[in-house]
């Protein structure tokens, strides 16, 4: 073999070997579309319009068979009261199932209730909360048996037949969105009313909210009016620093709301 031929064939061999196998693969457009589903559910919460009526909590518990008398809930509403002498009070009595019908702040079983002088109230507002259905959820990562998972359309669900009730996911959720179900004895959480949204219905809480504080959208559909708000308005998420990429977006977040 001449030296020139040797060089030529070496270069051809190197060039050929550097082509990755995946570059030669024929890509079916249908497969690409299937890998990127058209639907990814997201939630938008407007804290300016919430009045703390708690109809969302009532509707959620009714729709999803969560016992009223148990102090657990898939969604809840928090009240934030800032006083003029720079104190902050936060409560959510019974997850706001019956709304906020007392001006007293519920400080828990040990401290009881605290009445705040109306003249001392600086600002106050209500924040509805629910599972954020994170894009990188810490709760599904820690499950030791593969009982909780993220669906392709972006909802985090729990497999009740497979959950062993270890409670690891309840600990791992930075938002406290999970709880132990008192009837089924497994971890339970908001499902975005999966049985409703897959039938084209609104979630129970969105339907029940009289003030439009809760909205839901398909964030992959840029023509959806709610998606447009998320894309164009100034929205925030809770606990961004945890890196779980929450999919519940808030209008009017304060730094105390976490």
């Amino acid at each position, binding site marked *: 073999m001449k030296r020139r031929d040797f060089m030529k064939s070496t270069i051809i061999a190197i060039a050929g070997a550097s082509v990755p196998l995946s570059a030669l693969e024929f890509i079916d457009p249908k497969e690409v579309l299937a*890998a*990127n*589903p058209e639907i990814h559910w997201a939630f938008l919460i407007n804290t*300016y*319009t*919430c*009045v*703390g*009526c*708690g*109809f969302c909590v*009532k*509707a959620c518990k*009714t*729709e*999803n068979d969560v016992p009223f008398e148990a102090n657990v809930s898939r969604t809840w509403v928090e009240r934030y*009261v800032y006083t003029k002498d720079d104190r902050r009070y936060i409560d959510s009595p019974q997850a706001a199932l*019956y*709304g*906020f*019908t*007392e*001006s007293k702040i519920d400080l828990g079983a040990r401290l009881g209730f605290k009445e705040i002088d*109306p003249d001392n*109230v600086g*600002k*106050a*507002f*209500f924040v509805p909360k629910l599972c954020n259905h994170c*894009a*990188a*959820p810490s709760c*599904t*990562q820690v499950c030791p048996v*593969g*009982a*909780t*998972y*993220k*669906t*392709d359309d972006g909802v985090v*669900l729990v*497999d*009740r*037949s*497979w959950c062993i009730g270890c409670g690891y996911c309840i600990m791992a959720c930075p938002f406290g969105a999970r709880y132990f179900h008192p009837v089924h004895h497994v971890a339970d959480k908001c*499902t975005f009313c*999966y*049985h*409703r949204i*897959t*039938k084209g*219905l*609104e979630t*129970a809480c969105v*339907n*029940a909210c*009289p*003030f*439009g504080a809760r909205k839901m959208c398909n964030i992959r559909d840029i023509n959806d009016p709610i998606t447009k708000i998320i894309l164009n308005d100034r929205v925030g998420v809770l606990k961004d620093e945890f890196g779980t990429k929450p999919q519940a977006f808030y209008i009017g977040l304060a730094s105390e709301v976490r």
Partner: protein
Amino acid sequence: MKSHVWRPLFVVLGLVAGILLFRAYYVPGTFGSGEYGFMYSYHNKENLEYWKNQPVRYRDTGKQKMHEYCGECHAEEVEVRTEDMHGIIACENCHGPALKHPDEPHMLFVDRGRDVCLRCHTQLPYTTSERKRIPGIDSNEHNPGLACVDCHNPHNPRLEDM
């Protein structure tokens, strides 16, 4: 090498093989991961049907849809509602879930208690929230013991129409 080295090794290998065999037998073949990969979505894919098949209770009766569905029979009640006031409240918030109504249940349970009204109409001194727009009362002072609906019409709450 002597058997005291090999023997525990065989025990460990046997255990590993046994666990793998048990796993293959016990874990259903429908397990797999979806778009979010093994880390976030390793699960039994049949479970999706369980959540899709949960019973629906609420028929969406928001501001628009109450006209479409409830208005078919209860046109008068839907008509009397003032769109700027209680018209924003879904019918089912007070009348209860109505998916199969009027077949089952034929009559809906209507929540006429004070607590329903007090959810929004409790006087709270929060001038910076939306509460400032809603008239509020102190439940202990404002006709305690009486039902709100004894005097107020919940479908048309205007005081001048009382």
